[in-house]
């Protein structure tokens, strides 16, 4: 039977997954610290009716092989590592990372998660936590009476207490980076977990030469979704879906004609 039917079906499935991914990117275009993903496709195996370079006779080889491709499949969804725009919020506990580092946060199950969403608040004890209540690691405690909080580009947190003129250092925010951040596991809530593909985190102080990046106080990193690109990709996905469905129709009509031969 025609491979064309299955081949075109593989193309339609792939474009469906592509559209799912575009939908997720667009849905998160306002999520601070969200990093978009891109689907990568790869071609499937080939049916080699004649191998290229096969011997035609003892002296000669065929000019071109006969290879029939069997379709496509989505290979992976890669995290796009571009920097999102930084927007000024004026909130002293909003931090943005300019560079490739991640904040470390303690998840309820005791694991350390990684995020680029730097919107923190003090909890009842004064510890900096995310909007979900996960504590920033290493823990930084802001005294409740603090009047002024300053975070340097290297992550040094200092506060001014009432009656004191000298700022007092209360901790240093450390950042983590990965050999292959594209291989991180997204678990939702802007949190990533390391995998064997991403490698183990390398923890360091912001602003160093490692490429962790610097911390900007009073800023938030917007999602790096490029809405125009996503719309262009959406049109391409839709048209590609359409052309694959057109192949199925053509194959169906050809099969129909073949069936009519036997009348």
């Amino acid at each position, binding site marked *: 039977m*025609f*491979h*064309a*039917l299955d*081949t*075109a079906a*593989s*193309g339609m499935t*792939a*474009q469906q997954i*592509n559209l799912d991914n575009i939908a997720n990117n667009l849905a998160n275009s306002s999520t601070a610290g969200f990093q978009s993903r*891109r689907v*990568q*496709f*790869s*071609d*499937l195996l*080939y049916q*080699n009716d004649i191998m*290229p*370079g096969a011997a035609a006779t003892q002296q000669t080889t065929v*000019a*071109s*092989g*006969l*290879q*029939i*491709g*069997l*379709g*496509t499949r989505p*290979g992976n969804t*890669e995290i*796009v*590592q*571009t920097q999102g725009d930084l927007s000024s919020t004026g909130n002293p506990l909003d931090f943005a990372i300019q560079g490739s580092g991640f904040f470390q946060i303690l998840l309820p199950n005791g694991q350390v998660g990684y995020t680029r969403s730097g919107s923190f608040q003090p909890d009842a004890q004064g510890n900096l936590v995310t909007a979900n209540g996960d504590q920033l690691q290493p823990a930084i405690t802001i005294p409740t009476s603090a009047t002024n909080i300053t975070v340097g580009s290297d992550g040094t947190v200092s506060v001014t207490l009432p009656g004191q003129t000298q700022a007092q250092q209360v901790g240093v925010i450390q950042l983590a*980076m990965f*050999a*292959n951040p*594209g*291989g991180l596991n997204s678990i939702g809530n802007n949190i990533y977990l390391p995998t064997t593909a*991403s*490698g*183990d985190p*390398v923890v360091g102080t912001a602003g160093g*030469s*490692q*490429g962790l990046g610097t911390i900007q106080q009073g800023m938030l990193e917007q999602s790096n979704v490029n809405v125009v690109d996503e719309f262009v990709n959406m049109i*391409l996905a839709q*048209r*590609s879906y359409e*052309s*694959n469905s057109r*192949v199925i129709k*053509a*194959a169906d*009509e*050809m099969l129909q*004609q073949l069936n009519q*031969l036997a009348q």
Partner: protein
Amino acid sequence: MDSGYYSLATALNSRTQELDTIANNLANASTVGYRAQENVFGSILATAGNTNGSALSQAVNTYGILSGTTLDLSQGALQKTGNNLDVAIEGSGYFVVQTANGPMYTRNGSFQISAHGQLVTSAGDAVMGEDGAIAMPPGVVSISSDGTLSSGGAVVGKLHIVEFAPNTQLTSMGGSYYSAPAASVQKATQSTVQQGMLESSNVNSITSMVDLVTAQRTAEMMQRALNMFNSEIDKTATQDLPKVG
């Protein structure tokens, strides 16, 4: 039996194979670094070896078949991605990838750094530099147009980019990988690389759609001609002729 019947059946068969190739091209219209397949039709003399055949006999016994597929090696459009580890080749070169099945060649420059700090393809196979696999220390990666890689400002290697001798037949291996005879591999002289870009598939959807319509309509012609053999000629011979007289 009328040889035209077999000739048409062969041609109809080759059109269904043509449809398979078109379907594969369209299915891979979004595959980075994919090279479109082109159909090569040829004729085959069914009575080969029979040197006594008349010119007429040879003419009616020449069957059209799909004799091969070649790759369209034209440049695909470059698409900006902004990822530091995405590289596109401008020119006819290929990246060299070390796989479990030996060296393979690819135009898909969507690279990553493995957990062991090696530059790898998205399938996890090591990308070859001119001195073997490339180790990438952590840091901001920049890639110059001749393929020199630097990480955090220090040069760490140079991408091995190869071109092939003219008329080399590449074998599609799937996963955007191609293999080629070792003897045809040459050092790239006319290729440059672009960081932050990927080369889209070079499938032309307009020509693919035209091919699709053509394949469908020619198949329809074959089917009509087969019907004529079936209904007009054979029916006359088997049903109408006995009634004469």
